[in-house]
């Protein structure tokens, strides 16, 4: 898993509640092998027409945001299908952090497994940040996982500032270390085996 400590990057505002994973990456691309990369397919149907020609106007295609590494979204980001491809597409396109008022649970979990940091900030604050980014295209934010802060560009007030966020301590530790949780869990073999013996005795019909 990719290690995450800090990220300073251009942030792009995405004014779209309920951004579902079908929109992040449509189902017809899911058979593609992971090794081929999904970055060019991120938000495909919002960015290209059916004939493959570009559909102008999507925030990540604006010159100021084309190198965005942070996305500030709206309520229920990543809802819907469990496809981990949604996280892969974001990461392959260079997005390392998504900030939103709430996330689809499975997308939220998938993000941590891959080294993408999902940050929950209050709904009103996310709206302020999106507005600030709309006024200051190409503005860079700094995300510090250790300190659990999101900081606006130095010297620019205009709705930015420093925001603190909560993160599950175990997940924070895994992200900071880049440690893979399968290896970690396998180190708990004895505990698991003891539990399984007890469980099997309690429910012998399984």
């Amino acid at each position, binding site marked *: 898993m990719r290690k995450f400590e800090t990220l300073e990057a251009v942030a792009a505002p995405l*004014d*779209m*509640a*309920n951004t*579902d994973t*079908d*929109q992040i990456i*449509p*189902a*017809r691309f*899911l*058979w*593609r092998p*992971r090794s081929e990369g999904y970055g060019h397919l991120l938000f495909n*149907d919002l960015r290209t027409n*059916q004939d493959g020609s570009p559909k102008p106007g999507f925030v990540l295609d604006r010159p100021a945001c084309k190198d965005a590494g942070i996305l500030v979204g*709206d*309520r*229920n980001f990543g*809802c*819907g*299908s*469990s*496809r*981990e491809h949604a*996280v892969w597409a974001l990461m392959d396109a260079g997005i390392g952090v998504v900030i939103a008022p*709430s*996330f*689809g*649970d*499975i*997308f939220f*979990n*998938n993000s941590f*497994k*891959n080294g993408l940091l999902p940050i929950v900030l209050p709904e009103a604050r996310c*709206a302020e940040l999106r507005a600030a980014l709309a006024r200051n295209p190409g503005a860079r934010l700094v995300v510090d996982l250790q300190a659990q802060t999101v900081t606006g560009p130095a010297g620019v007030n205009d709705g930015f500032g420093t925001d603190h966020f909560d993160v*599950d*301590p*175990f*997940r924070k*530790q895994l992200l900071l270390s880049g440690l893979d*949780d*399968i290896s970690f*869990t*396998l180190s*708990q073999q004895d*505990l*698991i085996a003891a*539990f*399984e013996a007890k*469980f099997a005795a*309690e*429910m*012998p*019909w*399984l």
Partner: protein
Amino acid sequence: MTTPRTLFEKIWERHTVQVRPDGATLLHVARHLVHDGSRAGFQALTERGLPVRHPERTFGTPDHYVSTASHDLAAITEPYRREMVTALTANAREHGVTLFDLGDRRQGIVHVIGPEQGITQPGLLMVCGDSHTATHGALGALAFGIGASEVSHVLATQTLWQTRPKSMRVAVEGQLGAWVTPKDVILAIIARIGAAGGTGHVIEYAGSAFRAMSMEGRLTVCNMSIEAGARAGMVAPDETTYAYLRGRPYAPQGPMWDRALAFWRGLPSDPGAVFDREVTLSGADIAPMVTWGTSPEDAAPITGDVPDPARAPTAERREAMARALAYMGLEPGTAIAAIPVDRVFIGSCTNSRIEDLRSAAAIARGRKALVPAMVVAGSGLVKAQAEAEGLHTVFLEAGFEWREPGCSMCVGMNGDLVAAGEHCASTSNRNFVGRQGRGARTHLLSPAMAAAAAITGRMTDVRQLMAGAA
């Protein structure tokens, strides 16, 4: 005296292997379901040279990529889709996982066959790499969807790290009206609490409407818990549950049945158990529902109108509604019952069980479909049952297609697609932009309402269509 506990808490605690001081909980997975979309999960295992820890607790079936025209592998015309199906066969064989493959009558949509085979049981923690896994909660299991990395983790360790969700009780009290179905109940619940209304929560569905509901109906409701953002949805087991399970192939038999039953009877939430949130709806107030937008929360009664974005409570909601209506090609104020329908899909893990097919057939019987309509049974066994009851004849005579089991037109990845701009009356679970195909306009509704739409070519109040009929 022990603290009263909810159904969810009892299952969560029974499967807890370890709680770290920071709150992260390692949970044992009693049953793991895999499908033809689980390739990446197996791949990570292969790359690390790890075995499946408990193949006997892992069950698979191909559903997402299979052709519903024919279950001959050659019917999957694109090699890359065929490879998703054959990879499941190969992985199951390599790791000794039980597989209900193409050609086996037990094959079907993973969330249909789990309960059907008795793999799904009360009190079990179950996962699957699919967001509609909450379906299995209908039997009083704690079941939720996971991503590919988590699938690998479960295959390798039979456990999963989770943070404890909050609990929510959604009660529906009173009797449902004629032709008001479990699908209408869940669409009404989502319209009420919103597509993110259950985020971070496990919902327990309760109240007299659920006690009176069949197992098929409970499966439909729990299936769409994710569309309210909930991690899982569940219904306490009762006599309906036990009657459904008894005698199923993987259900306990003989003396073990009695032991299991004694355990199951202790599962329902204790009197006085506390939920973080409670919502109550009146069953009598629920009408047949139809979605008009691009989120499952965009649902209205068939007697209603397409809402006007200008009257939305916030600017953000106004824009979202306007965007949805533009995509759907609908004008504010249009009667829901005036929306034209170009195509009908009856199937998916939400509504492809025998009761769904009986309900749709009751409408189709002796009538003719005006628009293309397809019926896709949820499993080979559902299909066989429907054929034994003659339902396929009813559908075929009414001009509906009768196809082979699979996820089909719900998911736009197996060849069953809705064309751009077409309005599809669909019994599936998601009306997202592009879900059934690029530019497809999905309207979610019940099997009876879908069949009624097929007959008239527009959204139709099934109660009116059937007024005076038996």
